[in-house]
């Protein structure tokens, strides 16, 4: 991110969110904090992170708050997990499972991942709920999972609800979801999104035990990632579109849950001015950046033009050129040359980015096609722009 202030805020957002969670726990004078796995990212190995975590957990200890953790798949593969000497208010359940009394009549149950994969259900490792007490169970699971992804401690909501626990505190999936309310089966999501792949505000869940159990969402994210879209259809002038952008960004800023947001703004719809917009992309990016910045809470990450126009191609030379360019792009030789160049130049990227860009076999073809199509549009826009 080229904006220094934003860059700073995003870089420290995960820590700020955890700090905010600890602040909330202290302010609400909670009895315990439940962390259902993936406390560490798989790649995180810095002692600074361990030191920060220790510091925050010690703050909780100073306020008499107990912390319960289970290890998730990322914890299992992370070297920090074994090396951090946790303060004595922290209890980490092991892979054999167990239960700990939080308070009179309240028991916390948990089972950790023994290693980074758990293809089988971990439910058999749970001990039976303590009769006459409130039983809260912690489990790191992908539940039924998603197609194409490895299953992590697979189980179903029905299996969970039938085990007799009063509250299932789940972890693993980054998006918050309440699967059941009697008993509660809550996937609280993560505290802070890390990139555009994890959009929206993020939160923790405050559980209150009374005659009944309530679960309330507590916002934690400092920065949220948002994908916005403004429709250019029917905007007869640049001013109209600018107004729409401004309005959308202002409204988003005023409705924002987190303190600030990183925005990817797409311009969609149909517009006869799409060529001019593509040509003047830099000007539009400047404008959108300024509008976002003017809200004081939003930063523009990227401006994407995803426009089509109503006009059929005419007999003009530029239209003819566009048609020829389209034909050229469709030719195997051109595509092969593009693929070769991509493969060659992608050596400049770190392996992780290469893998992200080309996740499967067909990805190279798709990338080559997308780049060729968008590149042709950009050059055509400039040619058209130079003529007008």
């Amino acid at each position: 991110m080229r904006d220094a202030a934003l860059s700073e805020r995003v870089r420290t957002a995960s820590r700020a969110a955890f700090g905010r969670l600890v602040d909330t726990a202290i302010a609400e004078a909670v009895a315990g904090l439940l962390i259902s796995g993936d406390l560490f990212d798989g790649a995180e190995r810095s002692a600074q992170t361990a030191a920060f975590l220790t510091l925050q957990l010690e703050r909780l200890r100073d306020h008499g708050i107990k912390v319960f953790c289970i290890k998730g798949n990322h914890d299992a593969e992370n070297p920090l997990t074994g090396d951090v000497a946790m303060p004595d208010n922290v209890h980490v359940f092991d892979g054999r499972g167990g239960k700990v009394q939080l308070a009179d009549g309240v028991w916390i149950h948990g089972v950790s991942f023994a290693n980074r994969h758990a293809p089988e259900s971990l439910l058999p490792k749970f001990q039976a709920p303590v009769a006459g007490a409130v039983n809260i169970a912690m489990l790191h699971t992908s539940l039924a999972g998603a197609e194409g992804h490895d299953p992590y401690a697979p189980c179903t909501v029905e299996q969970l609800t039938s085990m007799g626990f009063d509250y299932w505190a789940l972890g693993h999936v980054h998006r918050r979801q309440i699967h059941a309310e009697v008993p509660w089966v809550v996937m609280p999501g993560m505290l802070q999104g890390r990139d555009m792949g994890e959009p929206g505000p993020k939160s923790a869940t405050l559980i209150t035990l009374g005659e009944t159990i309530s679960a309330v969402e507590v916002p934690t994210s400092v920065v949220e990632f948002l994908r916005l879209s403004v429709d250019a259809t029917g905007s007869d002038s640049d001013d109209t579109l600018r107004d729409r952008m401004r309005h959308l960004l202002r409204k988003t800023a005023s409705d924002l849950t987190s303190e600030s947001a990183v925005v990817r703004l797409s311009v969609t719809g149909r517009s006869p001015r799409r060529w001019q917009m593509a040509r003047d992309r830099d000007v539009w990016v400047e404008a959108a950046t300024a509008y976002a910045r003017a809200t004081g809470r939003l930063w523009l990450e990227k401006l994407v033009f995803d426009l089509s126009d109503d006009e059929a191609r005419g007999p003009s030379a530029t239209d003819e050129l566009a048609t020829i360019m389209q034909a050229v792009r469709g030719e195997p030789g051109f595509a092969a040359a593009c693929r070769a160049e991509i493969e060659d130049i992608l050596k400049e990227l770190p392996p992780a980015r290469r893998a992200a860009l080309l996740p499967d076999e067909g990805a190279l073809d798709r990338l080559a096609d997308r780049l060729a199509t968008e590149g042709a549009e950009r050059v055509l826009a400039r040619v058209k722009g130079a003529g007008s």
Partner: protein
Amino acid sequence: MRIERLCLDFFGQFTGKVLDFGPAGRASDFHLIYGPNEAGKTTTMEGYLRLLYGFAHREPYAFQHQRRNLQVSGTLDVGGERRCFTRMPSQSANLRGEAGETLPETAIAAHLGGLSLDDYRSLLCLDDETIEKGGEDIANARGDVGRLLFSAAAGVADLNAVLDETRGEAGTIYKRRASTTRVAELKRALAEVESAIRESDISASAWRKLKEALRQVEEDEREARRARDTLREQQARIAAMRRALPNLSEHDGLRDEIAAFDDYPASIDINPEALVAMLSERGQAAAELRRLEERRDATVKARDALVVDDERLALGERLEALDELRSRMQTAALDLPRRERSHREALADMARVAADLDAPEDCDAATLITSQADIAGLEALRDRVRETAAARDNGAREVAALKIRLADAMKAERALAEVQPAATGLSDLLGRFDADRLAPDVSAARQSLASTEEALQEALDRLAVGSTGFATLPESPVDPITALERAARHDQLTQNQALLQDRLSQLEEDIAVMTIRTAALSAEIGVGGDEQAQAARAERDALWQTHRSALTAETADRFAAAMTSVDQIDAARIALAAGLGTLRKLTADLAEAEARAEAMRQKRHGLAEEIGALLGEAETLAAGIGLPPLSPAALSDWVARHAAAAEASRRLERCAAQHAPTRQKAEDLLQALEPLVGLEAPDFDAALSAARRLADAERAEAERLRTASEKTAGLREEVARRQSAQTALQASADEARHAWQSRIDGLYDGKLSADRLAEALGHLRALREHDARRLQAARQIATMKDDQRRFADAIGALGEGFGVEAGDPLEVYRRLKESAAEAHDAKARHRQLVTSLEEYYTRAQQLKLRVEEIDRQVGELGAVFPKTVDTATLEALRAAVGRARDVIAKRAQVARLERLILDDLSLETMSDARAALQGKTAAALEAKADTLATDLGSADERLSAATVARANAARDLAAVTGGAEVAELVAERSTLQLQIEEAILDYLELQFGLRSAKEAIRRYRDTHRSQMMAATEQAFAALTNGAYLTLRTQADGASEILLAVDRRGTPKQIGDMSKGTRFQLYLALRAAAYEQMVSQGVQLPFFCDDVFETFDEDRTRAACRLMERIGRSGQAIYLTHHRHVVEIAEQVCDEPPLIHAL
């Protein structure tokens, strides 16, 4: 499409401005719009574009009319059809048709070949800037044919700049092994961040080890410090004894030295320096007193020798009083001859002026001096004479001219009166019938009737069936509802019949299949069949009866055989039981199917009969009105068409009735006009048109005669008025002349002539100026002579009083001045000597007092010493003080050494100290100290190493804070990786876009080369007046470059052409591109806005011919403010362009 008429109703500075380009059909559709700068040429072009594409949101041409009032209209020729459009400024529904109806945008857009406004501007509107860019682009393309053709055809003036810029942009993003690209910079930043992470990051296990290491090194440091401190203490003790030994020795020596001076005071408050100063001061005072007395005696002697003369002292003041007079006298001695010369010249000038004025020779010029007021009066009189004479002469000339114009006007009036036609009364007639309103009404009525009649005729035509048609509307044989019902019934029955037939066919097929299957099963079952079984059983029962009654072996065998047969059949039947069941079901199904088929056949018959009846009825009805046989549906359609025809017939009747009064009025007018218009059986339009023409001509003639009469009468009145005025002018001139002559005579009494003076009135002013100069010179001469005389008198008297010889007054003055100065100097010297004496006396008194004071102080200071010590004089006192100070200093040194020894040894008394140092020697202590120093060095090194180790461990541990530095670096690394990815993808996009564009331009060239090259060649030859006759291409690597071959056959590359020729080539390419568009079916007006600005005359000629050429394939409109372009175009074009002036 072409523009036939453009009306800028409210646009720019125009209101209702119409440009009529006329209908198509000229050999070349070339138009020149000519007007001076700011006349609105570009506005006209923009107005045309607004008509096609609508008004801009922020309209720059809304400066005179508000945007909401803007309007442009025009007539377009679209494929031979004339269509009127009006463009309004509203946001929607802003395109209107001829009758004000809203038209969809496609009404125009459909004929623009898909060109957007920007496309239109770039392809079909040329201006200087485009040509300039195009010429440069041709140079930049270095002759690449593909780019040249595409640039021209796409109207992209700087395609190369665009492609180069894009290529450059890609180059700034990424280039292999380059170090200044964006990717390279990001990678550098990434490497730095990764290095920073490596340096600052530390793992959690290492952190734990760090904590342990710190604890260990802290313990080591404490131990090392303890050991070192012990050694230091020992070293300090040895060092103290080594310092104390010499101190004790010195202490004892000093104490012995001062033992004899115990009665000297413990302290003394006398500063020896002060004593020295006092001694010095007393000596200086005595010496100065002696010098003062000597100088006093010399001064008294000098004062007594001086003489002061008061009379000569007063002389100075009297000479000062005469100084101004002396100064003036000196100046006058220089100026007097010049003033006298000036006086003589002024007199000579006056005499010359008098001669110029033709005064008599003996006339004194001074008598001609005239006052300023008189000169002004003379000037006024002379001007008056001149003005009145000029007015009189002008008046006379104008009267003569007016008389000539009057004669011409009377002649023209008579000529007009003779050719006036007789009155026809046509105007009144047209007015009475209100022809202006009647004509459109008649036209509308005629059009309305024609269209209604046509509608009726079309409806009747639609009634025709085969060869049977109807000229008039026949009676309908049946009402539409009945016909529709019958048709529906027939249709329904036919459908039922078809359905029934389908189902019957299906059933018959099923029956056939079942029959075949029954037969096959029966054959398969064979003996097991029901019939065979029954037959076998019947045979068995009969043979049983036979056997029972006979009971023979034969009957028994036959019965047994029959039994066996029945058993075999039964066994077979059991084996084929399933087949039998099927056979039975098939048999039953077959019977049912046949029954159903029969029922269907009967139903089909009933339907056929009913259908036949309906058909028969329809045919009968059709035959009734002479139509060939029709089905009920066809008849129903016909009846519906008949109803429409009946409606059209009624509409025609209503229309005729509605327009009957208009038509009658038109008929009446036609009858009234017929005898007057002189046409043979004219129709209404022809008669009306002729009548209007005649009436207009009649009105115009009458108007011209009336105008001529008014002009004659006006001129006649003007002549009379001017003649009367002329008499007054003459009188005024005479009166002025008389006044002038009288005034001259009065002033100069005949010495000067009036005519000479009228020409030389300015001489009188010159005369006044010369006289003034003469008078001033005379005054100055008199004043100077008076000053000389007064100075000589005064200085002579003074010289005599002080004994100076008489002579040149200035010399006398100088000598008197010297005498006065001498007296003044003597007086000043006397005053100075008296002052010096007074100062001497005062200073001597001060010195005596100071010597007495010093002697008193010496006495007081000596009192602090014992009586035995001599302190009588300053020198003795100074010696005593010196000794006392030495004793006191040694006493202090003894005390200091005591303190040092006790402090070093940390003891209380000197006796303890002596005991401690008893038997110690310096050599022994030094040896001990050396040993300790070695031990201490080792201990220090050990401590230092432990401290460094502890500090390092503490630093390493302190570096691991809960801070976010590493997390931030890691995040920054991710950001940088993403940025590199973005940049690379950005680069690839541009690369692929460029690559496909380059290939596409090459293919574009291949597709269009031959046609566009031929057209460009022709146009270029025309534009360069044949300087370049052909164009050809030459391979240059992967591309082809363009060469122009000149008149001598020499090929020339683009880079070798002049700037002007490159412009022409660009223009030729654009013309070829236009022709290509036309060949593709897009034919739109082509605009040029003063593009020939930089062309010389020859090139402008060629360019005009080129425009004419474009006009042959489409419509060419050229906007210019150069009159010479218009003239050249008219000369050089085969068919001169239509000129439209703004």
